[in-house]
């Protein structure tokens, strides 16, 4: 029997039984689509979390007052000393440190005319933009100046700008924060939420002014960009050592993004495991579906198998026909399923653009492998059983 004839005959059999073929293809496709769509969502969740952390910048060290465990256990020893602007200056002068930015934070109401909006007010310096990879959309960021000098400049997040000024340009306008007046010098480019702060919904003022405004003596954080990524750990030790000298106690914590990431490693592992779980459950469901359809289909056709044998088809030829059918079904179903799954994800991403849902390649590969394997095994195994019967037994059903 020629290979092309086998394919043509198998194709004819599939086309000849439209309903059964349609059900089989749908069975395979639904299973595969489920695997593709569900793993895409799981992978999206994983990437979203990862993206949140990497948005911090990869050379970033964060210094915070108080000695705390990076895993978030209760601090011990308490906060012995304030983290001051002088500490920030000292840290900026360390040779391994590139740029650094101090950070003081409090929530205050920003007012323009009779409109007001309570937002986080961040006191910092000009270098914050490059340390946190922020982008300015209009005007400019805070001017470079001595951090001990206050200033009346304010930079708005896009949401604050649009809430207070509508479509008007806020540049050059004067807003009030508490009793203080500030002149708007810039508006940030839209960025969205980034680990803790919504960058569109906050304002920046010079750090010294912020500390006076909040009546605080301690900085909230010092953000440090290390010059060379390989020197993250020495730089961290430099900072800890420097602060120990300055405060005569080890009362600050310096964490890196890696430390944050490893602190969240368990979450990532759980997400990955959940993803694998989702994938295997949907693969199992798909496999059982394919198995049932193929079993019923072949069992229904025992008479045909008997006839083909009576007409002189050898067991091998009859099996080849059923194998070809199973492979065609599995491939068509698999391709349809992948298409449907990707389409569903495309629709989802269209609705929620910030969620990076995309099916991992291994999930697609596993889905295709399982559909092929199950389709072929359960397409051929019952056919094999049927060919072993004497043709007369298979023909007996009329």
């Amino acid at each position, binding site marked *: 029997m020629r290979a092309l004839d086998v394919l043509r005959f198998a194709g004819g059999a599939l086309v000849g039984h439209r309903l059964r073929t349609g059900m089989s293809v749908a069975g395979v496709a639904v299973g595969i689509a489920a695997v593709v769509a569900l793993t895409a969502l799981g992978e999206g969740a994983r990437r979203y979390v990862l993206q949140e952390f990497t948005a911090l910048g990869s050379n970033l060290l964060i210094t915070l007052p108080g000695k705390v465990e990076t895993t978030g256990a209760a601090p011990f020893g308490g906060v012995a000393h304030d983290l001051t602007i002088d500490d920030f200056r000292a840290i900026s002068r360390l040779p391994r440190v590139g740029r650094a930015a101090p950070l003081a934070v409090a929530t205050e109401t920003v007012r323009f005319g009779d409109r007001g909006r309570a937002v986080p007010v961040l006191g910092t310096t000009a270098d914050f933009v490059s340390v946190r990879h922020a982008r300015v959309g209009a005007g400019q960021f805070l001017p470079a100046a001595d951090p001990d000098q206050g200033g009346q400049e304010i930079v708005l997040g896009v949401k604050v700008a649009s809430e207070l000024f509508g479509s008007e340009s806020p540049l050059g306008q004067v807003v009030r924060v508490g009793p203080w007046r500030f002149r708007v010098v810039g508006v940030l480019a839209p960025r969205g939420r980034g680990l803790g702060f919504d960058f569109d919904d906050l304002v920046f003022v010079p750090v010294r002014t912020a500390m006076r405004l909040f009546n605080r003596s301690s900085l909230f954080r010092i953000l440090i960009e290390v010059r060379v990524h390989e020197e993250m750990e020495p730089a961290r030790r430099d900072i800890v050592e420097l602060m120990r000298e300055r405060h005569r106690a080890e009362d600050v914590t310096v964490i890196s993004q890696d430390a944050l990431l490893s602190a969240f490693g368990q979450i990532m592992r759980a997400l990955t495991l959940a993803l694998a779980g989702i994938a295997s459950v949907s693969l199992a469901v798909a496999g059982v579906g394919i198995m049932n359809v193929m079993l019923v289909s072949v069992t229904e056709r025992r*008479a045909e198998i008997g006839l083909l044998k009576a007409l002189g088809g050898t067991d091998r030829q009859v099996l080849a026909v059923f194998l070809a059918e199973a492979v065609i079904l599995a491939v068509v179903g698999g391709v349809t399923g992948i298409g449907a799954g990707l389409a569903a994800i495309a629709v989802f991403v269209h609705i929620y653009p910030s969620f990076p849902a995309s099916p991992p390649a291994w999930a697609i590969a596993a889905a295709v492998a399982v559909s092929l394997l199950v389709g072929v095994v359960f397409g051929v195994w019952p056919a094999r059983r049927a060919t072993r019967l004497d043709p007369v037994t298979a*023909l007996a059903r009329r």
Partner: protein
Amino acid sequence: MIELERVWRTYQVGDAEVHALADVSLTIGKGEHVAVIGPSGSGKSTMLHVIGCLDRPTAGVYRFSGRDVGSLSEQDRSLLRRNQIGFVFQFFHLLPRLSAVGNVELPMLFAGVARDERRARAEKALAAVGLTPRAHHRPDQLSGGERQRVAIARAVVMGPSLLLADEPTGNLDRASAHEVMALLESMRAGGLTLVVVTHDAALAARARRIVTMDDGRVVTDGA
């Protein structure tokens, strides 16, 4: 050409053994026309299946053209069915998705005959049973008599030496039945050996030799 020597075919039904064929010995020569008659369950279909290599004897020897079929592999018996034996069934057993030509082509498909040659030979075989105008109809568009003629064309398209028919007219009206029998007899006149299983005494009477079976045994054998 066909030699059955003390052939038994035994089925296990629960605890009981059922002898569908019990010690059957029968010789059929080349070119003979034999009718096998007998009541339902007398073993006549089983004998036809054994002769057609669709079923194997439980005991005894079956020789086809001098070869002991019992010792052949499943593969060799498939080749025997393909090249030497044509079947006609009571329920036609045409594949409903294929046209008349497609059904007649089936045995040649397994033999690896090229597509064009297959088509030509199938059309020729259909012409021989007078179905050229219906060649591209599917079985559900054909009458019972036409379906059986397609089945006959399929049975002879490989040029077999033996034609086996199991109640070939059992599902046909009188007129179609006569047509089909006439066709089978003309095939025999062309040199085939013809064995027909039937209930119908009138049809059986057209054969040169009538084998009567009952309870798995050959009761009478003769004209």
